[in-house]
């Protein structure tokens, strides 16, 4: 009996950590193919490239914990990027979106942008709570609308759908300035948000209530928790986070166009699920979102690093998603 248990344990341990093991195997593999991969800069690269994705994933997590989702997440990134960029151009830049716009302190465009996406989140929340719509479909409709609006704004004269450039230094500095010449400020911001979210979810009543509502809305209601308030709050927070991600995209790329953020929600959702967040709500840790995002960035980074063609990356990505989630399910199944 005992010996059996021990045997079980060994390969269970292996399986439970299969993801990590696979990851290390890949790292070794890549280093063998190209020793240059073995350098500190690779780490900082991966961190930097994860920052924005991480913020999106955390955002989406707020909706997933409720058993919801936001298919408009990516399009909100795009809208935020275009709106923010259009308001944060250098006054000296030759072809400005708003030619007569005075020189605004950078905080203004940021706040306007966040306010705008917050409204979108509010509408999503209302559709889901007051009109009892399935989040999947409500936010899909929203995605279409948001994108349309973004296109119309982007096509506004005199911009005529030309990419927006000439972004203020006060914004782009976020991506260029590196702490100790190493860690980009964006990484710091992302991790700050991560820690804060961890705190909210685990150390505040609001956070616990999110899990309770996600776990069983009916029971939550009977327990005197306002499902409506919690849901709306989560969708607003999520929108603000993805909106902020959009702003960082502008800082990062020094420009914006209406196709920014396309399908970001899917990578975000997938990262969360890979990290053990349940799509049916009530289950999930921020650490999970982090791991998920890291794995993703690592894969696409690593494979580009050794110059593997993106089509293969797609295939591998698919395989990794499926296997890792399957492994994760296994754990739950055991319980």
């Amino acid at each position, binding site marked *: 009996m005992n010996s059996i248990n021990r045997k079980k344990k060994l390969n269970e341990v292996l399986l439970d950590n299969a993801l990590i093991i696979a990851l290390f195997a890949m790292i070794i593999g890549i280093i063998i193919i190209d020793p240059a991969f073995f350098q500190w800069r690779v780490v900082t690269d991966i961190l930097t490239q994860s920052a924005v994705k991480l913020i999106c994933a955390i955002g989406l997590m707020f909706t997933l914990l409720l058993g919801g989702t936001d298919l408009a997440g990516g399009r909100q990134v795009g809208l935020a990027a275009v709106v923010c960029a259009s308001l944060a151009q250098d006054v000296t830049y030759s072809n400005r979106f708003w030619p007569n716009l005075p020189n605004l302190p950078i905080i203004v465009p940021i706040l306007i942008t966040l306010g705008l996406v917050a409204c979108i989140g509010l509408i999503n929340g209302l559709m889901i709570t007051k009109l009892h719509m399935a989040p999947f479909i409500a936010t899909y409709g929203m995605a279409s609308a948001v994108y349309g609006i973004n296109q119309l704004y982007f096509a506004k004269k005199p911009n005529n759908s030309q990419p927006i450039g000439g972004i203020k230094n006060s914004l782009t500095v976020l991506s260029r300035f590196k702490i100790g010449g190493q860690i980009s400020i964006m990484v710091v911001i992302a991790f700050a948000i991560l820690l804060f979210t961890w705190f909210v979810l685990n150390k505040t009543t609001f956070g616990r209530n999110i899990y309770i509502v996600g776990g069983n809305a009916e*029971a*939550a209601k009977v327990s*005197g928790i*306002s499902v409506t308030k919690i849901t709306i709050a989560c969708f607003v927070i999520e929108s603000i986070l993805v909106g902020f991600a959009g702003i960082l995209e502008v800082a990062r790329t020094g420009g914006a166009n209406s196709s920014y953020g396309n399908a970001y929600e899917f990578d975000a959702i997938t990262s969360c699920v890979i990290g053990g967040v349940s799509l049916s709500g009530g289950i999930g840790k921020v650490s999970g979102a982090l791991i998920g995002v890291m794995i993703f960035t690592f894969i696409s980074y690593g494979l580009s690093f050794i110059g593997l063609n993106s089509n293969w990356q797609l295939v591998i990505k698919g395989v990794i998603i499926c296997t890792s989630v399957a492994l994760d399910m296994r754990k739950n199944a055991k319980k």
Partner: protein
Amino acid sequence: MDEYRLRMIDITKTFPGVKALDKVQLSVRPGTVHALIGENGAGKSTLMKCLYGLYRQDSGTIEIDGKQVEISSPNEALKLGISMIQQELAPIPYMNIVNNIWAGRMEKKGIIIDDALMLKKTQKLLSELEFNISPKTIAGTLSVSQLQAVEIAKAVSYDSKIIVMDEPTSSLTDAETEHLFKIIKRLKSEGRSIIYISHKLEEIMEIADEITVMRDGHYVMKSSIRDITIDGLINLMVGRKMEDRFPPNEHIVKEEISLEVQNFTSVNPKSFRNINFSVRKGEILGIGGLVGAQRTELVESIFGLRPIADGKLVKYGKEIHNANPKEAIKNGFAMLTEERRATGIIPMLSVFDNTMAVSYKKLCGNKIGLIDNKRLQKYVDQVVSNLNVKTPSTKTPIENLSGGNQQKVLICRWLLANSDILILDEPTRGIDVGAKYEIYKIMRKLTSEGKSIIMVSSEMPELIGISDRIMVMCEGRQTGMLEASAATQEQVMSFATTSSKTSRKSR
């Protein structure tokens, strides 16, 4: 031909953290009712799930008519002539009763489903059982009690040689239980074996031929019902003596009226109307009645879960409005709902979270709602041990607890809320005698602290044994109010059935 229809030998089943079954034995003769009893968490359901192919035992063998069998899915169990009524009822919500009953074995003309035929057979089935529900009713709209009726009808309709009934009467009233027993006797006479799980020991004494007792996943003993008494059963189950089923009633009811319910009328015309009653400080008011008496509707409306067309609540002399549960809780109400699964537990969350659900804000001890787990752990540990909930730890997901223990956790939840008017809808449903006694003690303790309790119960002994007064309802109307001390089961029944005949016809 083997003397046993079924033999389960040395069945062992472990779940992470729990050894649910440890070398358990069960032998059932043809044409007998075999009761399987034990405390909450003893392993009864798990054992039956192994038999029905829902779980795979780690070790041990199952024999039917002397032949060893492997059962890896309900499908195979059914093929082997085993059918089962689940403890946790799970209907197909959007489908009518007909489809719920014949799911998996539809009648067909050629390849085309024969709905007409199934409808006929269903009507026959239901009338045999004297359940008057229209077969076309959508399962999702049925009451727990009605659902249980359907589940029974279904289990019976398979003509199987072994029928497992896991707490079939947990939400039936005595009348319905009587119908069920008629059926069971018929099935017996047809030579079928029934495995009967229940915490209602009177029932066991009435219907069972043999019993097997389990405790903490172990086989304790098997005996013929003739050689045993209720008290014998009890201490076999709990492993100690229990003088009384109900703690003594010190009659601490105060004069002061805590809650007045005036002219309560549901928006749903088929539901309750013109309900008037009051509860005193320190009083336990029982609400009795048959299925569909609308007791649940009534109490859920008082708690603000359902809209009312008319009526008002007066608490300690001043009118209050329970617009929604949040308000109700603010106004000092607590509500243990009838449907544990649907509106009670939060399955994947820990016992800790499930216990704290109502009280995080209240107990965290600061305005912003920052949580200090150590601080809260004290409260949780206290209630959980008071009701001695069987759980590996308070971090265990509640879905891994046995039915009864889940119920206890929910009671813990409301104990922490520390409200002064508690509404308990079938509070001891599926709870073992030992635990019941603890819950009764707690109810008494609460009333002795001057709290008032409104208890919906379909268990006559409980209703009479623990209440101070009993209000009886019939089809949404208030038909009687009795002093429990003087009340008899007959009285309650007669009020509960007043005018039911006439209205039956009118349906």
